């Protein structure tokens, strides 16, 4: 029988091993430091350059521009969604002419920059003033606001049609067949069986499309619409103060980040039943 008759004396706790300073760690610290310096510089610039007169003059204009941007995006997203539905069906149609036309529409509007489309609609169609007046549409194409809205709508309709088509085609064929074998009418099967499944697939691309549209909407400032970017350009042209752009950046970032988090929440909520 052996037993311990000497207790091991108490030992000090092992030393905390310091993490070695690797190159990656060093770079990371430097870059984070750089970001912190930039953030501090931003805050310092806002504090030192604070001018109550500028704030009272341009603050409300910024808020108004923000509202303009949000309205523009919201209306064009909704109108584009309405327009995209027949477009997506035309794209999936078995008729070659209809399918080809829808394909051409989508290809043209996805292949050209929004800025060029905007110029084409605002300046290009202005050339046909007599004809447009005869049809009674001149009031629409005379106004920069309507032109911006129109070009954003037809642009996003092309993108949304592709999203919708992809989502509808991602629903397995068996779902259609199951509905048919149950004797459900095609339209009802589409509305109650296919579309709900397709929209869950389409949720994330839709969110991305709205974010892209918010960012793209800055372009309408070029045709004199006073959206957030337009107000920023106005304020910069009056004050030559670099801060004006930084404020716009803060507003845009806040908008996009808020939408992103909202979309994450919606997606989590709507896909609860798919979680294993």
């Amino acid at each position, binding site marked *: 029988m052996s037993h311990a008759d000497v207790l091991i004396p108490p030992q000090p706790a092992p030393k905390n091993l310091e993490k070695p300073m*690797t190159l*990656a*760690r060093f*770079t*990371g*610290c430097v*870059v*984070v430091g*750089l*970001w912190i310096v930039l953030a501090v510089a931003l805050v310092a610039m806002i504090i030192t350059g604070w001018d109550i007169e500028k704030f009272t003059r341009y603050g409300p204009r910024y808020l108004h521009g923000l509202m303009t941007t949000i309205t523009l995006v919201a209306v064009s997203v909704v109108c584009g969604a309405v327009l995209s539905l027949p477009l997506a069906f035309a794209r999936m149609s078995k008729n070659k002419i209809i399918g080809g036309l829808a394909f051409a529409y989508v*290809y*043209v509007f996805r*292949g*050209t*920059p*929004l*800025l*060029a*489309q905007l*110029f*084409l609609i605002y*300046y*290009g*169609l*202005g*050339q*046909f003033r007599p004809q447009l007046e005869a049809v009674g549409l001149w009031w629409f194409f005379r106004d920069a606001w309507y032109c911006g809205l129109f070009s954003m709508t037809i642009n996003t309709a092309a993108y949304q049609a592709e999203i919708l088509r992809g989502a509808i085609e991602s629903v397995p064929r068996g779902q259609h067949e199951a509905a048919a074998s149950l004797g459900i009418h095609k339209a009802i099967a589409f509305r109650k069986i296919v579309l709900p499944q397709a929209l869950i697939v389409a949720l994330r691309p839709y969110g991305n499309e709205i974010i892209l549209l*918010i*960012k*793209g*909407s*800055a*372009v309408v*400032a*070029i045709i004199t619409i006073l959206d957030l*970017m337009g107000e*920023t350009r106005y304020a*910069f042209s009056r004050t030559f103060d*670099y801060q004006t*752009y*930084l404020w*716009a*950046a803060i507003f*845009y*970032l806040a908008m*996009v*980040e808020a939408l992103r988090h909202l979309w994450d929440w919606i997606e989590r909520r709507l896909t609860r039943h798919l979680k294993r």
Partner: protein
Amino acid sequence: MGGLFSALGSLWAWIGYVFDPLCGPVGIFTWLGQSTILACGDTGWGDEIAAGLKVTVGVALVTLPIGLLIGFLVALGQQSEEKSVRLAAGIYTTIFRGLPELLTLFIIYYGMQILIQSVLAWVGYDGRVEINAFFSGVIALSVVFSAYCSEVLLSAFRAIPKGQYEAGDALGLHRGRTMLLIILPQLIRVALPGLVNLWMILLKDTSYVSIIGLADVLRQTGVAVKVTKEAFLFYTLACGIYLGLAIISSFGLRYIERWARRSEIRR
């Protein structure tokens, strides 16, 4: 030496002329628009638009490698084991994916001007600094491109199994060699569809540089419109040129995609 440079310069000009799709010997405007408003030379706007096309393509082609390189580094940072590196890379992509391209362009264009001016004033030089629009356009576009590119590359990195790195270690390859010989070839194949998409977006985004005064397609057509008042014709032409670029590059990219997949085909 000067003679050599001038010879190279004239050779470059000759190449630019011969392969010009609009105003070259086999250009569209040379053949179809000789006596119209689109003629090449002093009578029409063909040559101006052709010069704009070169600027547009140039901006896109210069931006691409810079953006890919920065995007690759940011993607590496995002999957780093170091928390600080991940944080820094995350801030970068969040900011530049959230800002409108136009605003990024303005911030970089005016910001660099102010920065350089204040540095020069600190040194003791008081003068107005005009920054090159091409330079700042390329920087702004490559920053935006790299932010999106890093996301594409990151998801491609995640598609590559860990065993591939371990296999590289087992063969005794240095980490850089593992990346270059084992990971990158697979990464390109996975990431190519996403990168193709980004290239198409980049081609369209180059239109923004016209706003800071760079004479690209849209700027040149805008000038033509101001003079001739033929807005519809010229802006349709601009849209057509962008569309043509998209179609041509989609054909080229299809070839590249087939090339990247050549090892998969026979399975």
